[in-house]
C-alpha cells in the first residue's frame, strides 16, 4: 500500500461539502451488487458512527480548545456516515442487514486476525470471530424458520453457515471480558489500526441490534436480538479494552482518523461497484484532510510529532475475500476455548477458572436459550430447510 499519509494532504475541511440530494443517492442493489460491497458499506458506516461517537465523548470531557475542531470534523463525519449508510437499499430488511453485519464481523475480523502482528491480540480476534460466526448461523436459522428466506442470498456463498462457539456459552461476567491492552509506545501501527477498526465495527453492530430488535413481532426474534446484542456489548468491552488507556485524547483522535484513511483506502482498492468506488475515493481524501488537521492539533496541543505514532505509508488493507479455510481451521482448533480473566482456557477448566462467568451464564439461560431454540437441529440447506420438508406441515406433504 503506497499511500503516503504525510505527503497526501487530502481535501481541506472547508471544501468538504454536501447537499441533501448528494447524501441520498441511488442505493446499491441487494441482488446485483457483490456481497463484499455491502460488507464495506456496513463496515464504513460503523467506522463513521464510531468517529461521531468518539468525537462527542471527547467533546464532553475535554477543555474548550478542542470543542470547535471536534464539532467541525464531526459534522462532516456525520454526513459521510449518512451517505455511506444510505447506500443500503430499502428492500434489504433489518434481518437481511443483520446477516450482512455478521458477514462483516466474520470476514473482516478473519482478515485482521491473519495480519495482526501481536500474537496475543490475534488470539483475541480469533476468539471473537468464532462467536460472530455462530451468530450468523443463529440469525440464518431465524431467517429460514421465521421469515422463510435463505441467508445465503445475502452472503453469496462466501461465508459458511454452521455453528461456531455456541452463543449460549458466550455469556461471560465482565471480569472475563477485559483483555490486555497494547502498549502505545511499542505497538506496531497496524495493531492500533486493527484494534480501533474492530472496536468501532462491533460497537455499531451492538447499536444496530439494539435499534432493530424491538421491530420484530416474533418473540423468538426479539429474544435472539436481545441475546446477541448482549454478546455484542461484551465484544465492544473486549475490543475497547485492547486499546492503550494511557493514550491522550488527541493521540486517540489521530489514530481514529488514520484508521479511517486506512479503511477508505482499502475499500477503494477492492471496490467493484464504480459508483461506490467514487465515494470511497472521495472520502479517503476527506479523511486525509481530517488527519492533517488533527496532526496539527497534536503538534500544537500535545507537543508531539505524529510521525512517532503513524507510519509513513499505510500497511496492507483488509482483505475483502472469503476466509473460509482460515475460519474452519480456527473453528477446529479453538471452538472450545473460553475466557478466563484476560487469558483463554479450555472449556473443561472453565468451571474452576471462570466461576463468575459460569454463574452469570446459568442465570441468563435459566429460562431458556433463544439461540439454542431458534436453531434446534438446524442445518443450513440451499433454498431453506423447507426443501428438506422440515416444517410443521411435513406430514403428508408430497413431492
Amino acid at each position: 500500500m503506497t499511500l503516503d499519509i504525510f505527503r497526501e494532504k487530502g481535501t481541506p475541511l472547508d471544501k468538504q461539502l454536501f447537499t441533501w440530494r448528494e447524501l441520498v443517492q441511488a442505493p446499491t442493489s441487494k441482488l446485483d451488487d457483490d456481497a463484499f460491497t455491502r460488507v464495506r458499506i456496513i463496515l464504513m458506516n460503523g467506522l463513521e458512527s464510531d468517529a461521531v461517537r468518539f468525537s462527542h465523548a471527547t467533546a464532553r470531557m475535554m477543555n474548550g480548545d478542542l470543542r470547535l475542531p471536534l464539532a467541525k470534523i464531526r459534522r462532516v463525519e456525520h454526513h459521510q456516515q449518512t451517505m455511506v449508510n444510505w447506500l443500503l437499499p430499502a428492500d434489504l430488511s433489518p434481518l437481511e442487514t443483520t446477516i450482512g453485519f455478521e458477514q462483516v464481523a466474520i470476514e473482516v475480523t478473519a482478515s485482521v486476525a491473519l495480519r495482526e502482528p501481536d500474537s496475543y491480540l490475534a488470539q483475541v480476534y480469533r476468539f471473537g470471530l468464532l462467536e460472530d460466526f455462530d451468530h450468523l448461523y443463529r440469525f440464518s436459522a431465524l431467517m429460514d424458520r421465521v421469515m422463510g428466506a435463505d441467508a445465503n442470498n445475502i452472503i453469496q456463498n462466501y461465508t459458511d453457515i454452521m455453528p461456531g462457539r455456541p452463543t449460549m456459552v458466550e455469556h461471560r461476567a465482565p471480569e472475563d471480558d477485559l483483555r490486555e491492552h497494547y502498549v502505545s509506545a511499542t505497538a506496531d501501527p497496524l495493531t492500533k489500526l486493527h484494534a480501533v477498526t474492530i472496536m468501532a465495527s462491533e460497537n455499531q453492530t451492538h447499536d444496530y441490534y439494539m435499534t432493530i430488535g424491538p421491530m420484530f413481532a416474533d418473540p423468538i426474534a426479539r429474544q435472539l436480538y436481545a441475546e446477541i446484542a448482549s454478546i455484542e456489548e461484551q465484544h465492544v468491552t473486549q475490543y475497547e479494552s485492547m486499546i492503550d488507556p494511557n493514550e491522550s485524547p488527541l493521540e486517540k483522535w489521530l489514530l481514529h482518523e488514520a484508521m479511517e484513511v486506512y479503511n477508505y483506502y482499502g475499500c477503494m482498492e477492492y471496490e467493484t461497484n464504480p459508483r461506490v468506488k467514487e465515494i470511497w475515493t472521495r472520502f479517503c481524501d476527506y479523511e486525509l484532510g481530517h488527519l492533517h488537521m488533527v496532526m496539527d492539533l497534536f503538534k500544537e496541543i500535545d507537543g508531539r510529532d505524529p510521525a512517532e505514532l503513524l507510519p509513513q505509508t499505510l500497511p496492507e488493507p483488509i482483505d475483502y475475500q472469503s476466509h473460509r479455510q482460515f475460519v474452519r481451521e480456527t473453528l477446529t482448533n479453538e471452538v472450545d476455548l473460553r475466557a478466563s480473566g484476560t487469558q483463554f482456557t479450555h472449556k473443561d477448566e472453565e468451571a474452576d477458572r471462570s466461576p463468575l462467568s459460569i454463574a452469570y451464564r446459568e442465570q441468563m439461560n435459566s429460562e431458556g436459550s433463544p439461540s439454542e431454540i431458534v436453531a434446534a437441529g438446524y442445518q443450513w440447506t440451499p433454498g431453506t430447510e423447507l426443501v428438506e420438508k422440515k416444517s410443521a406441515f411435513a406430514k403428508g406433504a408430497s413431492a
Partner: protein
Amino acid sequence: MKSTGAQQAMVGNRTGIQTSPEMAEELIEGASNATPSSEGGPEEIAEYRGEYIAEGFPIGSMPMMPASEEGEADEEEVGMAVFLDKLGERLAFERMGTRLYEALLNKCEMLGEMTPGPTLEQIEHIGREELEHFLLVNNAITELGGDPTVQTPCADMAGVASLGIMQVLTDPRSSMAQCLQAMLMAELTDNDGWQLLIKLADNLGHDEMKVEFETALAHEEEHLLNVRAWLSECVLDSAQV
C-alpha cells in the same frame, strides 16, 4: 466515465448458489457436516412463541372500551365496537390507498404511459375514488359517534400488513409491473374489506350506510378488474407472449 444503473444491472443477479458453484459446494459440504448444538427442529420456536401467545396481551383496544372490560359491555356496544374497529381499518386503508395511487401516478408520469398499462387519467380516476371512500368512511364514523382520528387495533394491524405495499410503490427503482403487483394485493384486500363492512352494516341495521358501502364496493370491483388486467398485460407483454 460516470457509472449508470444500466451498467450495474449488466453484472446480473448474484444471489443463489449457481453464482459461484465451487464456493457453493464448499458451503453446502460444510453445513451438511456440521452438528447442530442442540437437538429438535422448527417446532421448538412454536412452543416458545406459544408461551407469549398464552400471556394474552392485545395489540390495543377501542377508545372507551378497554379490552379487559369488553365482557361487561352489552350486545349493542360490542357490535358497535367491532363495527367502528373495522370502519377504522377501512378508513386507514383508503387513506393509504389514496397515497398509493399518488405514488403510482408519480411513477407513471416519470416512466411515461405504457401500452399496455394504465393511463394517467385512469390512475387519477381510481385515486379520486379512493379519496372519496376515505371521506365516506370518515363521515360514517362521525355519524356513529366515533372519532375518525382514532387508530383502531384493526387499522393498526392493516397498516402493519400493508407496509410492504407502500415500500414497493415509493421505491424509485420498482417497475410499473412490480407496482401493479403490489396494488393487486391492496385491491384484493380492499374488495373483501368492503364486503365485510356491508355485512356488518346490514346485520347491525345501518341500512343507509350499507347502500353507500355497496356503491364503494362497485368502484373497488372495477379497480380490482383494472389492476388485474393491467398487471397481466404488462407481464405478458414483457414476456413477449
